[in-house]
């Protein structure tokens, strides 16, 4: 049947997300900054949803940050990605889920390029064979890890211990959703809801009981800009763009921010600290800032996982005010403990924002 009219338009905003058997590729940024988020993702997949996810020790970085910092040529990047596809093929998987948005965007770009330029695909096959002896199949489905959590959001909500409801007021928590630029700005049809109305995080937040905050700079970049952050001399670009977002969202009084890109939560979290140090401005309540979560952490919180198992202690902006609003039971004194309760000391408070609350 031919799909016409509004149904056809709406179809462009839908996305097919498989329900099982995923080959997982990790994110360089998430592994360094939020390793607990990836641990939590796999825990939810396996323990809550009973989904088969394979985590291959032999996969590597996709080189995406190198590609967008322009030191790694496209032919190199696409062949490294082809190697990841080869590992997936060898293990008998057809669905790939990157943890990283830069990877997701890059894999999408590579697949689109191969589709439009078959000679480039042939080149990738030749390069990979020559360098590694491997061959590969193109994935039947490429979804971001946040797409999979989105798909199972109702099931997660059914199993949830907590709702995103402010226990003091009984009202839904007000959540800013921030989508990584490379999720759908390059290839809108590849993201849930497209580039203008991405629904991937909104759907999660609404299913978990929260309310989405709309604000003018909702779709603007967190400020990473690859070389713009990585080189100290350029970092004004990053902090200026981060500040633009916070100045825009702050009047709407969000209780927290949730992100699907691994880099954005780092910039939105550390950015608030840097702006406080530079300008003396603290967003949110003016005291502790606006807590920033990854989508895995958000799902982990509602499922009732220990906040220190999912990694909320590695955020600069303290999460305790948010946990208290939700009514999460947790042990404040265990925040900075290592395995077996080993004492790892505590971070220093910054000038204006406390790292933890006694």
């Amino acid at each position, binding site marked *: 049947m031919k799909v016409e009219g509004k149904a056809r338009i709406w179809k462009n905003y839908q996305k097919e997300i498989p329900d099982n058997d995923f080959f997982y590729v*990790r994110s*360089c*940024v998430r*592994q*360094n900054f939020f*390793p607990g988020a*990836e*641990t939590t993702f796999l825990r939810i997949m396996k323990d809550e949803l009973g989904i088969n996810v394979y*985590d291959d*020790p*032999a*996969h*590597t*970085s996709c*080189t995406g940050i*190198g590609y967008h910092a*322009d*030191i*790694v*040529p*496209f*032919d190199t990047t696409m*062949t490294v990605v082809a190697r990841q596809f080869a590992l997936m093929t060898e293990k008998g998987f057809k669905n790939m889920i990157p943890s990283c948005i830069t990877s997701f*965007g890059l894999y999408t770009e590579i697949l689109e*390029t191969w589709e439009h330029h078959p000679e480039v695909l042939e080149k990738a096959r030749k*390069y990979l064979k020559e*360098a*590694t002896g491997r061959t590969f199949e193109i994935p039947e489905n490429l979804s971001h890890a946040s797409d999979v959590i989105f798909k199972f959001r109702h099931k997660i909500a059914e199993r949830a211990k907590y709702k995103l409801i402010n226990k003091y007021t009984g009202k839904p928590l007000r959540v800013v959703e921030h989508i990584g*630029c490379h999720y759908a700005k*390059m290839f809108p049809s590849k993201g849930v809801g497209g580039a*203008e109305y991405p629904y991937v995080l909104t759907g999660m937040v609404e299913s978990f009981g929260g309310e989405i905050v709309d604000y003018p700079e909702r*779709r*603007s*970049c967190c*400020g990473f*800009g*690859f*070389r713009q952050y*990585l*080189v100290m*001399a*350029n*970092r*004004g*670009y990053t902090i*200026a*763009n981060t500040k633009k977002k916070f100045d825009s969202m702050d009047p709407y009084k969000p209780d927290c921010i949730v992100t699907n890109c691994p880099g954005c939560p780092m910039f939105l979290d550390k*950015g608030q*600290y*840097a702006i406080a140090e530079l300008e003396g401005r603290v967003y949110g309540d003016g005291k502790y800032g606006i807590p920033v979560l990854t989508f895995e952490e958000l799902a982990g919180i509602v499922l009732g996982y220990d906040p220190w198992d999912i990694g909320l202690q*590695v955020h*600069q902006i303290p999460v305790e005010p948010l946990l208290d609003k939700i009514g999460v039971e947790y042990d404040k004194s265990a925040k900075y*403990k*290592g395995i077996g309760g080993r004492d*790892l*000391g505590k*971070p*220093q*408070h910054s000038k204006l924002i406390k*790292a933890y609350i006694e």
Partner: protein
Amino acid sequence: MGALYDELAKDIHLQEGLNACINCGTCTAICPAAGFYNYDPRQIADIVQQQDDKQIEELLKSETIWYCGECMSCKTRCPRNNTPGQIIIALRSYAQEHGYFTQSEKGRQQIYLKRTVGQWILDHGYCLYLEGVGTDNHPEQGTIWDWRQDNWTETMDRLGANYQKAGAGAMRKIPEEALEEVRKIFEVTGGMERFRKIEEYSAQKASEMGLEDEEYVKEVYTTNSSQDNK
């Protein structure tokens, strides 16, 4: 039209990123870099589509092509399906392959990116490998980063990572055979050649500037003349 443009036009990023720019400026309106720098992606598209080698050469030597953050917001909004961000990737590639990049302050920064991100990929299989990369170079990482650096392995273990160990997991030690395959891919596909060119042209420039290697890298990492900041 010119030999330089013809060479540049072989880059798939230019083929995909430039169709026919109507100079509407929508890309500039949406661009995070244009909000911070005196930077105009519309002009980049316009100059390149004129195929005038002289103007393109000026671009390759300029600070301008290094201001884009490759967020690709321009791709979503262009009514003619151009992507100035892709044109930028083509120009930056060309600038590095032919040595123009050392003629601008921002272009010279490529050596730092190659020595960090590039080396981390080859040595460890990760774009970022941040144990020991502290708040001296990244003060905005905050007090929590100092605590994490002091307790890097312990916090990795606490959060279920598999830091520097064999087997699957976050920050695992990627097997040597896998790293060897990645290095071979870099060799076969021109990645290693790109790295060698960045090193060679940077060494020449360092010598011209009368700087030792270490001084040069520090200089490019920190110098910001702010000439185009808004």
